[in-house]
């Protein structure tokens, strides 16, 4: 404790000393900063705003599904005014608007919210600190990466205001649908979507090169590979996924741009008829090609969404059980296997495309194989809990509920991985339920756990525990109320694509009970939104009024980020950090306290 107190002291004098010489202006400090911590915060704030925006898109859609044909309350007139009569006549969500909200909800959540918050925000802030590095290996690339991301986000949002509205061919943008949505105005929302994606892919390329190079090159003395915290391992593998999986989508995006703007036929087959008239293109392309290239990114992307989340959960759990993590090495090897296998499972999204049963069998096999390392990681985390003296604070509650929620998400994926059962469930609400269990109560809970856990390091203050627990309990309850009914709807065969909530199917008296679930989901989604209010209040008030962190290491954690001053200054460490031991040495027999930090010699 003494040494950490003196840290804080020297840091204060250091910064006042720096002030006297040169004070960085607002722009160089907050907009054009090359400091990984500032960039991490920039990513975090922008990504959380996009997350909120994506959430509101979803609320509007859920209202439409529960009350098809009724004007959207509160925002209906605004939608009509801003987006035009074609989109929302009298405030009623039209089919096109529903489709574009659907496509943009997916795009925004995946590419602008979750990946940036996990990789851009937590990755940027925490990774260099945990490996004892002064910054990222390429600070200016890091800044460029954020700027490309932000610009990509601006392009995506701008697309809502183009004539014809934003992209509306699903977040997967399947061709030929995506190439024929607007045959008159070729510079439509889809073109914006593709340009936005090129920017986002550039951003993730710069980011991933930076992360991998940082982890390889800038580990401090003593930080051997097997002494790296699991969070760093997760970021390392995620970096490779982003580095290698995104370029094929960039290639595919360029091809679709050419199809849309220059009339080529990469993805347009011969004899395509649109709205009753033959399409005036050469044809000869392959719609399957788009799907292959898209899912070659799309599947590793799913692991990009989950691996850093598992990394955060591992950090929070290991700290709050006060005992060593069970099976650290097997978790490391598992995360590497997941990284490798995730490149050869993509076509399990395409069983229904008629690509052939032999191909389907191959991808079914690899899909079952990838569940093994995932189960190993989850099992190791569960076994770690055994015999621990668990601290139930907001961070650990979120991390603990991640485990069963991600478990549900993973297990419900198995029937989709099998060819035979997928044919029945494909494109139904079951798929939506499965995927959202992985990312919403899964990844999002990890994000919240990470925010509660690292907040004292970033701001020097704790978040309020009571509000945090309210946030956790409400979120856990309503998340399940939102997503569990979707499994039932899916089993009943409800398609995921219909903007009327399935009325055309079930209005014929097949099973009206399934339709009523739409109401339940809508009101639960409202409840989920209300439960985020304590979090937002907590987040902002705690920056200024939260309980001050007692020391630089308030959670009594072992990893290196806690041996920096709070908040860490530019350059992070006051003296060169050295890792003397593994990352999770809690309750070591004979040690003077129940935690032995990596950076402490004794």
């Amino acid at each position: 404790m003494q040494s950490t107190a003196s840290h804080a002291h020297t840091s204060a004098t250091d910064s006042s000393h720096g002030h006297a010489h040169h004070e960085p202006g607002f722009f160089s400090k907050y907009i054009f900063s090359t400091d990984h911590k500032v960039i991490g915060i920039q990513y975090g704030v922008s990504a959380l705003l996009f997350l909120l925006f994506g959430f509101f898109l979803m609320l509007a859609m859920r209202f439409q599904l529960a009350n098809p044909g009724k004007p959207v309350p509160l925002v209906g007139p605004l939608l009509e005014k801003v987006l035009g009569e074609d989109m929302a006549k009298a405030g009623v969500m039209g089919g096109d608007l529903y489709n574009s909200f659907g496509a943009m909800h997916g795009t925004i959540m995946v590419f602008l919210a979750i990946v940036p918050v996990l990789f851009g925000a937590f990755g940027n802030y925490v990774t260099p600190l945990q490996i004892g590095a002064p910054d990222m290996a390429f600070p200016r690339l890091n800044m460029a990466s954020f700027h490309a991301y932000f610009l990509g986000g601006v392009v995506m949002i701008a697309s809502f205001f183009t004539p014809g509205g934003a992209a509306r061919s699903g977040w997967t943008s399947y061709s030929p649908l995506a190439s024929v949505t607007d045959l008159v105005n070729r510079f439509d929302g889809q073109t914006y979507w593709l340009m936005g994606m090129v920017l986002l892919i550039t951003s993730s390329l710069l980011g991933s090169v930076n992360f991998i190079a940082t982890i390889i090159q800038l580990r401090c003395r003593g930080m051997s590979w097997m002494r790296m915290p699991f969070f760093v391992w997760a970021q390392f593998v995620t970096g490779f996924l982003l580095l290698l999986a995104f370029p094929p989508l960039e290639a595919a995006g360029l091809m679709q741009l050419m199809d849309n703007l220059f009339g080529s036929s990469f993805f347009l087959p011969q004899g395509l008829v649109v709205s009753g008239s033959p399409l005036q293109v050469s044809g000869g392309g392959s719609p399957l090609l788009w799907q292959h290239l898209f899912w070659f990114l799309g599947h590793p992307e799913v692991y990009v969404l989950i691996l850093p989340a598992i990394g955060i959960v591992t950090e929070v759990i290991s700290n709050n059980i006060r005992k060593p993590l069970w099976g650290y090495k097997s978790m490391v090897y598992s995360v590497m296997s997941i990284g490798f296998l995730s490149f050869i499972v993509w076509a399990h999204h395409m069983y229904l495309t008629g690509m052939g049963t032999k191909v389907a069998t191959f991808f079914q096999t690899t899909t079952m194989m990838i569940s093994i390392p995932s189960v190993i990681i989850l099992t190791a985390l569960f076994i770690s809990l055994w015999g621990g003296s668990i601290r139930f604070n907001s961070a650990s509650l979120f991390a603990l509920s991640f485990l069963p929620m991600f478990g549900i998400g993973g297990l419900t994926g198995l029937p989709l991985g099998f060819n035979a059962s997928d044919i029945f469930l494909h494109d139904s609400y079951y798929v939506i339920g499965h995927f959202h269990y992985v990312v919403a109560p899964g990844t999002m809970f990890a994000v919240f756990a990470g925010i509660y856990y690292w907040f004292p390091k970033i701001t020097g203050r704790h978040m309020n525990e009571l509000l945090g627990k309210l946030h956790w309990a409400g979120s856990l309850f309503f998340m399940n109320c939102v997503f569990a009914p979707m499994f039932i709807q899916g089993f009943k065969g409800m398609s995921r694509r219909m903007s009327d909530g399935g009325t055309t199917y079930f209005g014929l008296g097949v099973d009206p009970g399934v339709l009523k679930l739409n109401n339940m989901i809508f009101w639960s989604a409202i409840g989920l939104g209300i439960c985020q209010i304590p979090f937002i209040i907590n987040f902002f008030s705690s920056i200024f009024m939260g309980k001050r962190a007692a020391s630089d290491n308030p959670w009594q954690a072992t990893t290196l980020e806690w041996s920096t001053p709070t908040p860490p200054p530019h350059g992070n460490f006051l003296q060169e950090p050295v890792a003397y031991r593994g990352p999770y040495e809690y309750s070591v027999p004979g040690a003077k306290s129940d935690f032995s930090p990596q950076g402490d010699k004794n």
Partner: protein
Amino acid sequence: MEIPYTYKARPDTGLYNAKVGIWLFLASEIMLFGALFSAYILLRVSAPVGFWPDVALAWPRGLLNIPIGTFNTAVLITSSVTVVLAWAALKMNNFARFRVYMVITVLCAFAFLGIKSFEYNDKFSHYVIRLQDGKALTGHIEVDGKHPRFWNFSDQWSVAKLAEQKVAKIKVEMDPERDVHGHVKAHGSHDHEVREVAVSDIVFMGSYTPATHPFFAVYFLITALHGLHVLGGALVLGYFAFPGAKMWKSNPEQFINRIEVGGLFWHFVDLVWIFLFPVVYLL
């Protein structure tokens, strides 16, 4: 704390940061071009037979200028050699020789781009035409006594546009006849026979541009993307040769590293072409 290993190698990995960075970047680039080559293969093997009007094959062959492509390959390989020589000259502490080799490299790059744009120009004004009787013609066309040029997109002709502008006849400067493999059947006096074609006889016509056939779409996409890489590389190497060369005085070790990293990228650009040339031109 300063960021370590910005130009000194880290002892256990034996690499400085930028070298790790460039190799990772190149890995990503391999995936980008790999996806495009895969797309080429998939489009080619799944192309419907009889789709290309010129020959009884699904996929157009022999339409690219092989001698020019070969020459361009040689130009690019030369530049790859000179970029190594430039780096070696720096290692031997000979800055003047470095600059000479770097200038040759950049000149080769621009020569490559110039030759490539000559090829592009030829393709934009080259047409394939299918007639009522099922026969197909390929060659450059002349409309109202003018040859269409690539820099003017309104010069692109289609059957509909000819009818709209009430053009009755066009002249076609015919290509030499080819067999099904795309090889020229016979060389001789009738190489560039000029034929008049009535517009009413034409079922379909299109220039050698992306809209006419997926082959051209994929050809233009890959070569244009490669061309952008050549341009980008040339600009960076040119920067190192002149304004960026100031670093040679302040930090020679880091400057040599920069040349090495730039050279690695340049070899990659060369390597892409080494694959691109046989796949697109020869096969």
